[in-house]
């Protein structure tokens, strides 16, 4: 997927947040403040399938990712599947929910070797009260060309550092759900994310938002397209494969991405 279509601020749940109740009410207040930039990541080890499905259904109108459960994501119409460590491989999740965007957790660089649409990288700043993996994990994840969401001790005050390291967005549990005023926390986070990280481009005739100054190679990776199987025309100029990593997109660019199909 193109990063710009991915929400930049994720409120992740855990069992404690869900046990506190009123998840849907609190999520709606935050979603009203964050709009298209905001999404809820539902993670639970305690809920029954039916209770998880019911909770997802209560979040209608809010962008939602379901952790580990492509079946429930599909049934609830959730656009995202979060793939944690114990979950099925990405390919299996896609088989169950073909249209869902799969965001795979990457706890270390070794876990970046997954064919996911995006990565949830962390813990970056803090893990169980101790130090996290650090910004290097974001940098490594960003090198895949896939959008990266940073998680683990992220607050409005350190979010900009995660973005500077290459993250597209951030995810938080306590800094959002435990905030005295969650909608205010959402606004504080979004203000901390540097603006204008996206540009408007036209790809194959369709208007799209794309990550500002992404290389064409990164853009193809975000679209899950194999550079060897396509040809890219950038503002009417054909880009040779060797140039894909060097050419960057800018506001207003027109791209055509073509391949061979059956023909006579």
């Amino acid at each position, binding site marked *: 997927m193109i990063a710009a279509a991915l929400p930049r601020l994720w409120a992740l749940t855990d069992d404690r947040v869900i046990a506190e109740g009123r998840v849907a009410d609190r999520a709606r207040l935050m979603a009203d403040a964050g709009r298209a930039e905001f999404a809820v990541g539902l993670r639970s080890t305690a809920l029954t399938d039916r209770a998880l499905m019911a909770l997802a259904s209560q979040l209608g109108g809010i962008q939602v990712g379901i952790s580990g459960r492509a079946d429930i994501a599909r049934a609830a119409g959730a656009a995202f599947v979060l793939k944690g460590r114990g979950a099925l491989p990405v390919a299996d999740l896609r088989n169950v929910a073909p249209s869902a965007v799969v965001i795979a957790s990457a706890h270390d660089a070794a876990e970046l070797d997954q064919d996911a649409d995006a990565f949830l990288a962390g813990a970056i700043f803090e893990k169980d009260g101790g130090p996290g993996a650090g910004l290097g994990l974001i940098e490594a994840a960003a090198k895949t060309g896939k959008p990266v969401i940073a998680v683990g001790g992220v607050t409005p005050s350190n979010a900009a550092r995660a973005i500077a390291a290459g993250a597209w967005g951030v995810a938080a549990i306590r800094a959002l759900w435990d905030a005295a005023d969650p909608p205010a926390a959402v606004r504080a986070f979004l203000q901390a994310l540097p603006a204008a990280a996206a540009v408007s481009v036209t790809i194959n005739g369709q208007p799209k938002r794309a990550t500002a100054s992404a290389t064409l190679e990164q853009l193809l990776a975000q679209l899950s397209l194999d550079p060897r*199987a396509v040809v890219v025309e950038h503002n009417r100029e054909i880009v040779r494969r060797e140039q894909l990593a060097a050419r960057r997109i800018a506001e207003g660019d027109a791209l055509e991405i073509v391949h061979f*199909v059956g023909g*006579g």
Partner: protein
Amino acid sequence: MQTTTDVFTDTPLVIGGRTFRSRLMVGSGRHRSNELLVRSIDASGADVVTVAVRRVDLDRTKSEGVLYHLDPSRWFLLANTAGCYTAEDAIRYARLARAAGFNEFIKLEVIGDEKTLLPDTAGLLEATKVLVKEGFVVMAYTNEDLITALRLEDAGAAAVMPLASPIGSGLGLLNPYHVRTIKSRLTVPVIVDAGVGTASDACLVMEQGVDGILMNTAIAEARDPVAMAHAMKLATESGRAAYLAGRMPKREIAVPSSPTQGML
């Protein structure tokens, strides 16, 4: 037992300096499944397979181009400019096709009319000149008009491809006289492209002495495409062999084939 290769010798088909084994070329469009596509190409014995250039489908990024089914090391992929209505568009598609990195060949089509898909010969000639100058090996799809064929050869086309009848019509060889005339006047190979419906059509085309034949729909839309591909292979070989053998003259009187002498 002798095979046909033992009883007659044929010169190889050479286009743009490249030698091809089979005089039958096939398209890869309109097939009911990728499996039938590959099996029928196999059965046809063709080594040239045409493909079209189209936008990738961004909303179904898991959908596959034809390269996932056609091994480019096994078949010679001949890209076409099907669907282009101006010289400018055809040139753009040809350049995109070449950037895919397989070869310099292009099956150049500039269509002039949606209903008949007959070629715009002025646009075709213009595009041929530009592409030849850029180093393309141009195989020009045209009608059965001698003067256009001569102009295309003058413009540097590596092969001229007159139609048997309109694309996808299955009407067979409508104008054998004109096709024969073109063949007799041109130095570059003449490949009849489009319009054959069944094996006898292919045989009749090859009996005119042309260098090869290209077809798509006659195979793809047959009830059994694999069996039809096999029939087309035999018909192409048969028509070629009959042409080389030299047919008997036509007479409007009967001539007995058994001796008239020695009757009781």
